[in-house]
């Protein structure tokens, strides 16, 4: 075999690899067109996003938008790498939990001047913009909120009718709630074990913080950046854990280990449930027509007045390194405003674009629940969250769900930890994480 033949073979093997590298560097044509990169975290919305982009491109000749859709599981790792390399896409999805970290590291474009001068403020719920400001811990708008997520009380109307209890309304107090939960807890087939619990919760953020805020409480001391639940927050935690341990109106966590947490209510195993408003979607698909259900505001705590909601906005952000800030702003305003349609927002998320939220399309009449107006009212209320730096770690979220603060609450309702030692453990664990982040 000649040496040329060998080199030829080696080249043949390497050729496909070089072709891969060659592809990247061809797009720099001499056209005047502005090309924006847009990263979305929702693969289910891909085709609708494409339609939205088409509409935008027709209305804005000269601007082209390239959409990249990434599975939520990988989205944050990938976009963090882009941020580290200063190659963030011009426009991208941002969740409220990262606003503080990203804005303080200079990874978000300050939208304040655009928002002041180039936005019709009557078209948007401006308190969501204020929430964005608060969450970033700055005086600037670092993101454009396109939808609000809030929490509400889901209740099974059939179970309420059967027990002869009137449906929850905005005057409901914690006592009304507890009485109802006890009455709704039933051993229907009389086999000695409960088939329908009055209520279902565990240590999950949406299950705990909602009640803390309905009692005007707070888990974190924002001045010292320490875990320091005030008396209102502690009252909420003991109210909830007592529902399991004393009132026996809610199951322990381990009792429900075979359920997806969000399926307990729509499968009829619990008559009431509190979680994010996006569960409207899951309730519809799991319960179908098998149960009638509605939504209500959270019952007021002894120290709450019903004006404080657990809610946070999903946003669009612009890269601080963008070469086309004006075009990126135009696209952001369109994608979060007139370009948005109800089929792009999960049922239960509340668009910040008022013409959409206040339209018939939002109310989904003919589908359950029949009172989505309630969510619009909540969109105007004051909002609080427990987000901090490294929130997922101390809170116990996603793959860490059984750890952190979540795990501590689970420990109480599973009778693995007593109340006092659990709170001590929580303080130690949460403050270790907060101290590392806020030196």
């Amino acid at each position, binding site marked *: 075999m000649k040496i040329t033949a060998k080199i030829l073979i080696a080249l043949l093997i390497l050729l496909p690899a070089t072709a891969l590298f060659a592809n990247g560097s061809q797009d720099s044509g001499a056209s005047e067109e502005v090309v924006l990169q847009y990263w979305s975290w929702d693969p289910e919305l891909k085709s609708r996003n494409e339609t939205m982009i088409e509409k935008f491109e027709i209305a804005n000749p000269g601007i082209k938008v390239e959409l990249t859709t990434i599975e939520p599981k990988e989205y944050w790792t990938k976009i963090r790498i882009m*941020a580290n390399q200063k190659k963030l896409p011009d426009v991208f999805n941002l969740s409220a939990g990262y606003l503080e970290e990203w804005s303080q590291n200079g*990874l978000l474009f300050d939208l304040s001047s655009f928002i002041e001068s180039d936005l019709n403020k009557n078209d948007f719920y401006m308190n969501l913009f204020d929430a964005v400001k608060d969450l970033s811990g700055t005086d600037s708008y670092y993101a454009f909120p396109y939808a609000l997520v809030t929490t509400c009380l889901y209740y099974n109307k059939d179970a309420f009718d059967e027990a002869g209890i009137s449906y929850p309304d905005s005057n409901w107090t914690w006592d009304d709630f507890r009485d109802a939960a006890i009455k709704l807890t039933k051993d229907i087939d009389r086999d000695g074990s409960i088939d329908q619990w009055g209520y279902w919760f565990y240590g999950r953020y949406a299950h705990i913080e909602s009640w803390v805020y309905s009692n005007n409480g707070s888990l974190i001391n924002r001045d010292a950046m320490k875990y320091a639940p005030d008396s209102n927050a502690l009252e909420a935690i003991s109210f909830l854990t007592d529902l399991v341990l004393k009132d026996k109106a809610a199951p322990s966590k*381990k009792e429900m280990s075979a359920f997806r947490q969000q399926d307990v209510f729509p499968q009829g195993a619990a008559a009431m449930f509190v979680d994010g408003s996006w569960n409207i979607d899951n309730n519809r698909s799991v319960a179908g027509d098998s149960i009638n259900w509605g939504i209500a505001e959270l019952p007021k705590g002894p120290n709450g007045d019903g004006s404080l909601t657990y809610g946070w906005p999903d946003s669009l952000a612009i890269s601080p390194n963008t070469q086309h800030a004006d075009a990126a702003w135009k696209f952001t305003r369109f994608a979060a405003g007139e370009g948005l349609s109800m089929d792009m927002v999960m049922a239960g998320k509340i668009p910040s674009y008022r013409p959409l939220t206040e339209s018939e399309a939002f109310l989904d009449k003919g589908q359950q629940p029949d009172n989505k107006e309630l969510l619009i009212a909540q969109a105007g209320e004051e909002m609080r969250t427990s987000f901090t730096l490294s929130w997922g770690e101390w809170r116990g979220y996603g793959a860490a*769900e059984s*750890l952190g603060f979540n795990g501590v609450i689970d420990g109480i309702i599973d009778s693995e930890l007593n109340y006092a030692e659990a709170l001590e453990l929580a303080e130690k664990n949460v403050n270790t994480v907060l101290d590392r982040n806020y030196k």
Partner: protein
Amino acid sequence: MKQKQLSWYKKQDPWIFLFPTIVGLVFFRVGPIIVSFLISFTDWDILRDARFLGLENYKELFLSSAFYQVFRNTLTFSFIYVCGVTIFGLLLALLLNQKLKGMKFFRSAFYTPVVTSAVAVGIIWSWILSPKYGILTILLNKIGIVSPYWLGDPSLALTTVALIQVWKMSGYYMIIFLAGLQNIPESLREAARIDGAGKLKTFFKITLPLLTPTTFFVLSISIIDSFKNFELIYAITRGGPQNSTNTLVYDVYLNAFVYYRMGYSSALAYILLAVVGLLTAFNFYGKKRWVQYQY
């Protein structure tokens, strides 16, 4: 003569063909191994540039009580897994090493869980073991036993998850044992029988000693395998309840891709490497005491 036949062979030739593989190995294996060692001395969170911390991550790790629990969980899981798959794998292989009808069916049946996705296995077992509605709970109730919270009780959860992994993987080790068993010449067992050895005695005096090279292989592989328990834990317990099923691999994942503490996570990964390395070295070191390569 021979020299002449291979006159076209040059010493450097194989390297040309190995080149693509070596590039892959260096960039995608050796590279990350070295880089993650360096990262373990930093506070890298992907977002910002890394800051050098010295031994801070290792210090934090050794001073954290949660780490020792994770470490204990990891070793317990491995112990249950290695014993479990070795014993069950061998038992299944012995069962299937008989000339009966339908053996092929059983071989593939026992192998099926190995190729089933860990997530599917996790979901199915969560249902089987579920309180109140689970089939195992219902069956136990029928015979008057109150079923414990298999996955909800911190003192049981780790053992339960490890046994599910044993159930899933035994089929793989069964195949290896089966190959080993079929390599043992029938004549040796026949000779033992003629000399008056019973079935048990033949097994312990002939089969088992001659199977030791296979057993050694199974141990080596299963020790390494026993640390790869991420998927099942993710699918079933997510490290809970009360940290009871959190293992090194799971903790590495959490710190790297949930908390974005790449430095701390790399330190954990190096502890894991040390543990796997030590156990494997120990296994190799002990080999000459009990492995017999000759008939």
